[in-house]
């Protein structure tokens, strides 16, 4: 989902919880643009989301009864170039170059470790993403059961035709 023009995110877990986090992220980024007339940095956005995720337990009236049951991959492009952050329900976040989350994440992480290279081209990256998914997905990869989005340098969700083009190259 898109959080702002320069930040997108992928979710795994209770996706309904993710929508609340994304909405909060959108409000934070727009308020930042309003107050400072600049796009919010990816790290600050991730920090804002994790601050929300931490507010559970019996602290005061503002806390939630349970933590957000969702992990996010926040992908964005700011003054420091492209970057990727991984968050989890505990409210911790890590910066990564490559990460997989979800049920098939262990296999996918291993595959990424073998084939990932910081200097690859966009096309090689697209192919790597889909081929990694193919390894851990039980069904066949088609343009209707897979979504790809890139932030280069603005967020773009691929149309089914664009996804099909990548599938052809696998």
């Amino acid at each position: 989902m898109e959080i702002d023009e320069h930040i997108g995110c992928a979710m795994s877990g209770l996706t309904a919880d993710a929508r609340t986090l994304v909405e909060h992220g959108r409000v934070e980024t727009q308020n930042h643009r309003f107050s400072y007339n600049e796009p919010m940095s990816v790290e600050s956005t991730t920090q804002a989301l994790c601050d929300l995720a931490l507010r559970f337990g019996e602290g005061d009236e503002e806390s939630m009864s349970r933590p957000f049951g969702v992990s996010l991959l926040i992908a964005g492009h700011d003054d420091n170039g492209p970057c990727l952050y991984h968050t989890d329900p505990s409210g911790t976040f890590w910066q990564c170059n490559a990460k997989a989350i979800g049920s098939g994440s262990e296999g996918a992480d291993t595959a990424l470790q073998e084939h990932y290279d910081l200097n690859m081209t966009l096309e090689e990256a697209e192919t790597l993403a889909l081929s990694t998914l193919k390894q851990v997905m039980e069904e066949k990869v088609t343009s209707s059961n897979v979504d790809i989005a890139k932030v280069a340098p603005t967020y773009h969700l691929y149309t089914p035709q664009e996804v099909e083009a990548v599938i052809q190259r696998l």
Partner: protein
Amino acid sequence: MLDLRVLEPCSLQSSLAACADSQVLGTAPPTFKLPAVADLDGFQKAAVQMVKPAKGTTTLAFVFKHGVIVAADSRASMGNYISSQTVKKILEINRYLLGTMAGGAADCQFWQRNLGTRCRLHELANKRRISVAGASKLLANTLYSYRGMGLSMGTMIAGWDESGPGLYYVDSEGGRVEGKRFSVGSGSTYAYGVLDTGFRFDMTVDEAVELARRAIYHATFRDGASGGVASVYYVGPQGFKKMSGDDVGELHYKYYPVPEATVEAEMEDVTTS
């Protein structure tokens, strides 16, 4: 002078952040603390009087076959004093929505920027651009909730959405009207004269830009509170584009050049005497 010590400093950032969520997720308009003054009515009247002098302006907008044209002058005057000749009176809310400024400059700038934020949030949540009707309604509802509190704005919201060109006039009384031609400000009567005479729905973009430029020029010529630079913007399917920004003094000599003969005769008189 107003006794400002009585006022509690209003923490804008905290109240804005606090109501950001309800502003987006619910329908509550943003709220600020009321000034803690003994005589609220008197204070408000005085506040409105302080803002009022900056109202001299000419802005206009009209819809035609190819889109919307928005034009304005750039003078700010306080009584007989011209405080600025370079005020930006056409505000870019986003790439395809423009707003004009008339009345309180701070009110217009802040609330139109706020409108831009809310339009973007609408876009993110609904995956499509907000319509001009929707954007102007958002602004009108906000202004209505501040009715009677001294805001002073007479703004036109112009843009292009899925149903084509849109133009609305929204003011600080909370009023909102749709229309095809508007002019707002002290120079509006002069601008209307030129605009209504020369308007044809099927003009080309260049003809429409020239009509708007002339209308602003004529208003600045006769109205003392308007002047500076005549800016003209065009809003089409691709978004807005600034078409021209001409100093009205230079426009005067362009439209009504001084004939050469008269000048030479005067100089001859001087040398013989």
